[in-house]
């Protein structure tokens, strides 16, 4: 690890992250405040199964279902994945394409330590966003009249953090192994979105139901942490994926030519 690199990466990315965190808390508070007014009405709608699955298959008429559909299944993971992916790409392939890494890598530090330091900074960014979701959910649930335990709110924030770490490590691996910013952003983002679609639709077709096990989304949200608490298996799988992909990033960046 290189603490100077972790610190400088945080310094560069923290302002944007903090604004995102403030925005997330505000959005979650507003979403919670809307529940008493519209939640029960929307809950009575007959939504097609496919659409309901896209929204997490939850009951809008309950505050747990409301937050699962509005936040847990789409908004939360997409925001945290977007931040993690763009952040991980920017500090690897982005800095390489901008030619900044040509000078940094010429310093007396192993490349793997450099990538590890950047990965640590991005992990902290993800944790900050997950904390913002946790705070926002507490505020939002209170504004919506309560009904979700602090333990279950915490469970969602933890699952979300692990999902963000896995998504970020995917971009880190692609960015570190290729040095191509567009590829890292596009491929990692595409895999995450494809995972969301597969996890939503595969269960509707019995023969491809198994595909959901290949998605990060399944291990993040299928367990429904807002209703059932922490999914230890899901967290373990996401953690192993994050560690494995980070290892790929370290090894990949160590072994290849730096792009001109």
């Amino acid at each position, binding site marked *: 690890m290189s603490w100077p*690199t972790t610190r400088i990466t945080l310094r560069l990315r923290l302002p944007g992250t903090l604004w995102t965190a403030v925005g997330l808390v505000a959005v979650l508070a507003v979403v919670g405040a809307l529940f008493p007014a519209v939640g029960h009405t929307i809950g009575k709608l007959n939504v097609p199964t496919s659409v309901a699955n896209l929204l997490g298959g939850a009951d809008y008429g309950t505050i747990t279902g409301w937050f699962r559909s509005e936040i847990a299944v789409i908004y939360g993971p997409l925001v945290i994945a977007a931040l993690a992916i763009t952040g991980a790409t920017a500090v690897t392939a982005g800095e390489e394409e901008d*030619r900044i890494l040509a*000078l*940094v890598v*010429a310093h007396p530090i192993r490349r793997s330590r450099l990538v590890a330091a950047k990965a640590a900074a991005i992990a902290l960014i993800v944790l900050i966003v997950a904390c913002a979701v946790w705070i926002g959910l507490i505020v939002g649930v209170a504004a919506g009249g309560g009904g979700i335990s602090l333990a279950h709110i915490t469970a969602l924030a933890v699952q979300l953090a692990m999902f963000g770490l896995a998504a970020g490590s995917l971009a880190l691996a692609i960015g570190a192994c290729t040095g191509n910013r567009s590829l890292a952003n596009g491929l990692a983002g595409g895999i995450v979105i494809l995972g969301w679609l597969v996890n939503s639709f595969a269960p509707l077709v019995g023969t491809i139901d198994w595909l959901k096990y290949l998605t990060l989304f399944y291990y993040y949200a299928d367990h429904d942490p807002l209703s059932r608490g922490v999914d230890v298996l899901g967290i373990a799988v996401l953690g192993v994926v994050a560690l494995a992909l980070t290892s790929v990033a370290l090894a990949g960046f160590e072994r290849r030519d730096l792009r001109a």
Partner: protein
Amino acid sequence: MFRDLGRAIPVEMADVSGESVIDTRGLSKDYGSGRGLFGLDLQVARGEVFGFLGPNGAGKSTTMRLLLDLIRPTSGAARVLELDTRRDSVEIRRRVGFLPGDLALYPKLTGRAVLDYLARLRGGVNLRVRDSLIDRFEADLDRPVRQLSTGNRQKLGLIQAFMHEPELLILDEPIAGLDPLVQRSFHALLGEVSAQGRTVFLSSHTLSEVERVTDRLAILREGRLVVVDSLENLRKVAVQRLEIEFAEPVAGDEFRKIPVVKEVRANGRILTIGFEGSADAVVKAAAGHEVRAIRPREDDLEDIFLRYYGEVAE
């Protein structure tokens, strides 16, 4: 010139048979389509200021990146400070100062923050040395890098390359963007570094810059080494020129017929005649006219450079 700066190690002492700070054997990096570096055999001795010349795309930056293990060779090997560039790359980078060509820094950070980061990343930087470099170059440390001119960014690049007092400096186009006053400071700094027995390996395609500061130089073209020699020896083989001022205008054709004459340029009553070998035939031909003055014109490096290029191109 270095001699004006009191440099301690004269050209004659730059003996490549001694300890080589840079030693490459058949070093190659093939990018395909004829691009890259091919079979570079090069030795740079301790204490030398070594110029690495060539046009854009000749392989200068590729060589420097190979020496620092930023890229890996297709074949061949290199040793820097008697260490293997692959196996000992971290130790090499600890003892080397590097300025990349097309320097890029974090645009949102101030110059001070960039230097702080790089000093911490490297470790062991003497802050007094760094501060003296900042004073010497009058670097602007308080504005974000994105607001700095190319020259001011280059100053930051030079400071970070020199601030840990490295044994070897690898500088890719170090003078790019610097104004003449800063160039003078830079040249003085190179003189001091060389006088301390430290080594400088610098590239340029601006020939006059290298001419002022180097002991020996190498010319690279299309990834291949064309020549390595001292400036003094290169001058010996260069085309010589005489500037002859006549009382009346004289036709240049008369001189072009002389076998040793390579070029004739006329400017009113003055002919500039480039020739190889003895000046005897040129002087005798001039004696057929009323001569006001004969002035020898020393070749500059550009002439030498272009001559070698011409030979290779032919």
